[in-house]
């Protein structure tokens, strides 16, 4: 995806095909010779891990859809049928349910990595915004997917989240009725959520293709945050270097994923969702899945209905403006001592909000939630704009190669000193 390719297939048939549809060249230039900064750390493996998770979710999802019934009286029991009777049904269902959590875990690491190393800064603004769009689509997909088992938390989660739109003055109520297809969450809601839950992942695939395209136009950011100056000295070809590194990271990630699927498959889920949806009884605590908790906490921190909804959506939308809110000329957080403190404060605030989102909105929880919400928004609207103006950064390495040499320490330097002749 990085422009015209000089790739020439070896076989005559390959050349015949390539002159008609240059797909080999596309793959070759995007995933074989594509230059990768040689100083990338394992945080950069999460892009590949996310692609793997997207594919895993689509495959297990398509398979589950072969057995699932999107009908209010049968949805719950069809999921139980999958768990009890379908061959490997329990495996597929636990893979899919825990896969959603793993997907979000990976995307949060990916987002925080981007925020720390300044991956959103010029010239990667469009790349970053595409990422925010993927994140939004993921949230919509996960939310609708969670409704499908039609347990108590599915039903009441759907009720609460769709009711957010009722906060809009005037048009709110009609919108909610339109979303539901009735006067409450019911069979029509379940049916359309299933249709959209099946559709959205393919829209994510589409935006991911744009995301990767944009990435391959600007090139990857790297821990030093300095651009590639010499492809020869600063980069390695994607294959085999990045491929094998990503593969290793993916398998390590699969170990974590498997741990949850095989040993604690219900840890991340809510016990109430093993009770069939009952429109007449609300569970004691309505708690979304863990990956929505920080935003849920922000929603509840604002004492006004409309204000809470605006704050919640705003907390996600604000990410799209990050490239212009951060005024620092320095890209990587490694060279910004003050930024580091505020950034880790932000990570803690986000995790704290996640914890508070799971707690009942009362007493000290509310106060803590408000403090952390203020910090969340202040990070974007006050700290980052001002910090760039006042902070004194550390000295940047001149090139990526210099960064690698500095990082490698004495061992490689010694090795290099022993064999100077090979580097003529």
């Amino acid at each position, binding site marked *: 995806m990085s422009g015209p390719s000089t790739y020439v297939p070896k076989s005559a048939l390959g050349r015949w095909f390539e002159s008609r549809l240059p797909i080999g060249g596309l793959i070759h230039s995007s995933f074989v010779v594509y230059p990768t900064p040689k100083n990338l750390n394992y945080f950069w493996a999460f892009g590949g891990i996310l692609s793997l998770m997207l594919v895993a979710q689509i495959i297990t999802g398509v*398979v589950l859809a*072969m057995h699932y019934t999107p009908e209010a009286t049968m949805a719950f029991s069809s999921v139980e*049928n999958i768990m009890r009777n*379908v061959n*490997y049904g329990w495996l597929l269902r636990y893979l899919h349910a825990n896969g959603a959590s793993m997907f979000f875990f990976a995307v949060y690491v990916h987002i925080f990595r981007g925020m720390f190393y300044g991956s959103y800064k010029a010239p990667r603004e469009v790349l970053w915004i595409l990422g925010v769009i993927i994140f939004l689509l993921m949230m919509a997909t996960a939310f609708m997917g969670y409704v499908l088992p039609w347990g108590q938390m599915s039903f009441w989660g759907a009720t609460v989240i769709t009711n957010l739109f009722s906060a809009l003055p005037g048009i709110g109520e009609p919108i909610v009725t339109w979303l539901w297809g009735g006067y409450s969450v019911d069979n029509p809601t379940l049916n359309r959520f299933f249709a959209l839950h099946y559709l959205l992942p393919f829209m994510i695939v589409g935006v991911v293709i744009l995301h990767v395209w944009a990435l391959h136009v600007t090139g990857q950011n790297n821990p030093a945050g300095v651009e590639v100056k010499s492809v020869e000295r600063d980069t390695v070809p994607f294959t085999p270097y990045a491929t094998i590194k990503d593969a290793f990271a993916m398998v390590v990630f699969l170990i974590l994923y498997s741990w949850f699927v095989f040993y604690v498959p219900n840890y991340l889920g809510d016990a109430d969702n093993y009770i069939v949806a009952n429109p007449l009884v609300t569970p004691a605590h309505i708690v979304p899945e863990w990956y929505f908790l920080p935003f849920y906490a922000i929603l509840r921190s604002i004492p006004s209905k409309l204000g809470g909804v605006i704050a919640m959506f705003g907390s996600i939308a604000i990410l799209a403006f990050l490239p212009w809110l951060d005024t620092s000329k320095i890209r990587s957080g490694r060279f910004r001592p003050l930024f580091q403190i505020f950034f880790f404060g932000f990570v803690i605030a986000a995790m704290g909000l996640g914890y508070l989102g799971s707690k009942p909105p009362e007493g000290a929880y509310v106060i803590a939630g408000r403090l952390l919400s203020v910090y969340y928004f202040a990070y974007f609207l006050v700290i980052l704009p001002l910090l760039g103006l006042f902070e004194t950064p550390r000295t940047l390495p001149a090139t990526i190669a210099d960064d690698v040499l500095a990082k490698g320490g004495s061992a490689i330097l010694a090795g290099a000193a022993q064999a100077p002749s090979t580097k003529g």
Partner: protein
Amino acid sequence: MAEPTRRDFLYIATGAAAVVGVGSVAWPLVSQMNPDASTLALASTEVDVSSIAEDSILTVKWRGKPVFVRHRTAKEIQEAQSVATASLIDPQSDQDRVKQSTLAGKARPEWLVVIGVCTHLGCVPLGHQGDYDGWFCPCHGSQYDPSGRVRRGPAPKNLEVPTYAFTADTKLTIG
């Protein structure tokens, strides 16, 4: 010299592990399409045959398919038994087709039980129709005799006989 060998071994082992991994993931994805445990467990259907008058056919559902229970007349039985078996498209004697129709050791050839699915392409044939007054398939014109044997048309095989047994005079268990 030892270095490349070790490296090659490592690469081959890693590649082999990758193949094993992909294969192991593929199997559950394929296997899930097979009949599930509840489908496999739905083994038998019970039929009360007392209501089936002579020369009539009852259609019951078994494993999602129609099963014809035919109360045959003496004439039909006699004709079915006298056909020269060797001349048939799918040679089989009538005695062979109703051999499960017994009660306490006594043969009951008046009861024919066949799966009502044409062996050509799966349509349901119509009873008491066609040149042999057995079954006639409206889709592509296959004709069956009162023993459920194919006599004419594109169907290659006789109507399939399921596993069944009479557990009482009027009680038939299919499957």
